[in-house]
């Protein structure tokens, strides 16, 4: 346990001993801050004169501002996590410090969870920056606490899932650049597919005239593929949850997503014991 903490501490400090921590926090402060100001002011305009924006009444604050904003922050963090995770294990391998780390009296889980926790610490730091914006908002508006709490939880879970993905990629790559690029690529592809998938019709795409068995086989595969494309992206489960509508399936998705990639990271690190 204390070794996990030691690894975590060193890793977290390293973010701020190198420029990367400042870059990430700076980026999130600028982007989340700007979008906050712009959409907050827009929302204020709408409440002043709803009919001008083709609303019949003053729109619900949580629904039109708070939860979309939090989902936006989550997506932003999702695309910034490669910067956090790329160095975790790839850098150790590149510098040769992996030889140092793996010959210390450490269990694999102490290394992996230490690094995972450090990345979660960075995620926490990024969330703190977002929370500063929310404090300003709290000064003007009263919000429903569940929306706020579950909104922030959503952002955290999104970030944690991406971190576990990034940690795994980092464990199988040799350089930071490779690790960061692959993580970013996978995240981006999932994100784009997810957005496109929402336009896919639910009905079976096979033409009516085709034989029944073929149609049903195509139907099964199509439903499966569509389900994966729509449900797999990290941001797919965020929207409802950020509104305070919490379903066990969404939480389970994030937990399983993280657990799966942490499991793979363990296997990747262990592979040194049987690979030539």
């Amino acid at each position, binding site marked *: 346990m*204390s*070794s996990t903490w*030691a*690894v975590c501490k*060193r890793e977290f400090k*390293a973010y701020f*001993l*190198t420029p990367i921590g400042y870059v990430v926090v700076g980026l999130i402060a600028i982007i989340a801050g700007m979008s906050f100001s712009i959409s907050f002011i827009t929302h204020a305009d709408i409440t002043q004169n709803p009919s001008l924006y083709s609303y019949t009444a003053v729109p619900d604050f949580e629904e039109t501002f708070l939860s979309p904003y939090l989902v936006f922050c989550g997506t932003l963090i999702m695309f910034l996590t490669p910067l956090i995770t790329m160095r975790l294990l790839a850098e150790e391998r590149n*510098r*040769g*410090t*992996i*030889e*140092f*780390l*793996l*010959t*210390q*009296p*450490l*269990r694999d889980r102490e290394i992996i969870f230490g690094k995972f926790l450090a990345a979660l610490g960075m995620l926490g730091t990024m969330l703190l920056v977002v929370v500063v914006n929310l404090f300003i908002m709290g000064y003007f508006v009263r919000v429903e606490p569940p929306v706020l709490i579950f909104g922030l939880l959503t952002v955290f879970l999104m970030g944690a899932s991406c971190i576990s993905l990034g940690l795994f990629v980092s464990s199988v790559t040799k350089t930071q650049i490779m690790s960061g690029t692959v993580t970013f690529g996978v995240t981006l592809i999932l994100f784009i597919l997810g957005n496109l998938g929402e336009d896919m019709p639910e009905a079976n795409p096979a033409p009516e005239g085709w034989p029944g068995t073929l149609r049903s086989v195509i139907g099964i595969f199509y439903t499966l593929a569509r389900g994966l494309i729509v449900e797999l992206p990290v941001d797919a489960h965020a929207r409802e949850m950020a509104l305070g509508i919490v379903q066990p399936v969404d939480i389970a998705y994030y937990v399983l997503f993280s657990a799966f990639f942490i499991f793979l990271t363990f296997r990747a690190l262990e592979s*040194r*014991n*049987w690979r*030539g």
Partner: protein
Amino acid sequence: MIAVEGLTKYYGPIAAVEDLSFQVDQGEIVGFLGPNGAGKSTTMRILTAFAPATRGEARIAGFEVHQDPLEVKRRIGYLPERVPLYEEMVVTSFLRYVAELKGVPRAQRTTEVGEALERCGLSHMANRLIANLSKGYKQRVGLAQALIGSPPVLILDEPTVGLDPAQIVEIRQMIKGLRDKHTVLISTHILPEVAMLCERAIIINQGRIVAEDKMENLTKGGGGESLEEIFMRVVSSDRADTATVKKGATA
């Protein structure tokens, strides 16, 4: 303290180490000699439970490296060939981190780190960024790192590489001082160093042991040959036989 039995390591079809067997007793300083690519670093990596062996077993203080890697790692201090350092850290904070990983109790960490700094002549560099140190000083930090927690077994892969002559003398003195308290296995290809430091030498070539004996026996047995002459003889005769077969084996 170190017992190796039939150790074999293949990288694909290439044998880096073949059927290696030797022993190092407690308190001994043993030199591990061989030309580049002889399998010295590979053996050391197996001994420190960093890389798996293809066959055979290695025990450190009675613990098999593959079965009890954690117990083995608790008992060794290892200086790899490529000195692994977190360049963004300051020397002391790096050493404190090592102390923490090695499970040195909190109260003793400061003295432990201070001692390691002192022994490796790093006290005046304690607050420097590792990235800004010269090669020789980085090498010393690597050495200090291995000494932290005073592990009973020290495995040092070319500890004097990159040091200036004065530093080499200092580090040798320091290693000599480790005798009795620690068991030390040093790999090197600087022969006079072995003659000065070690009680016993193991010479390997092409992954096999070609000579192993106490220093005085090695030099006496060959009819007054120097270590250099012995080294050249065993290495070149072996090279002629097997060079074509195992060419390209990496260290």
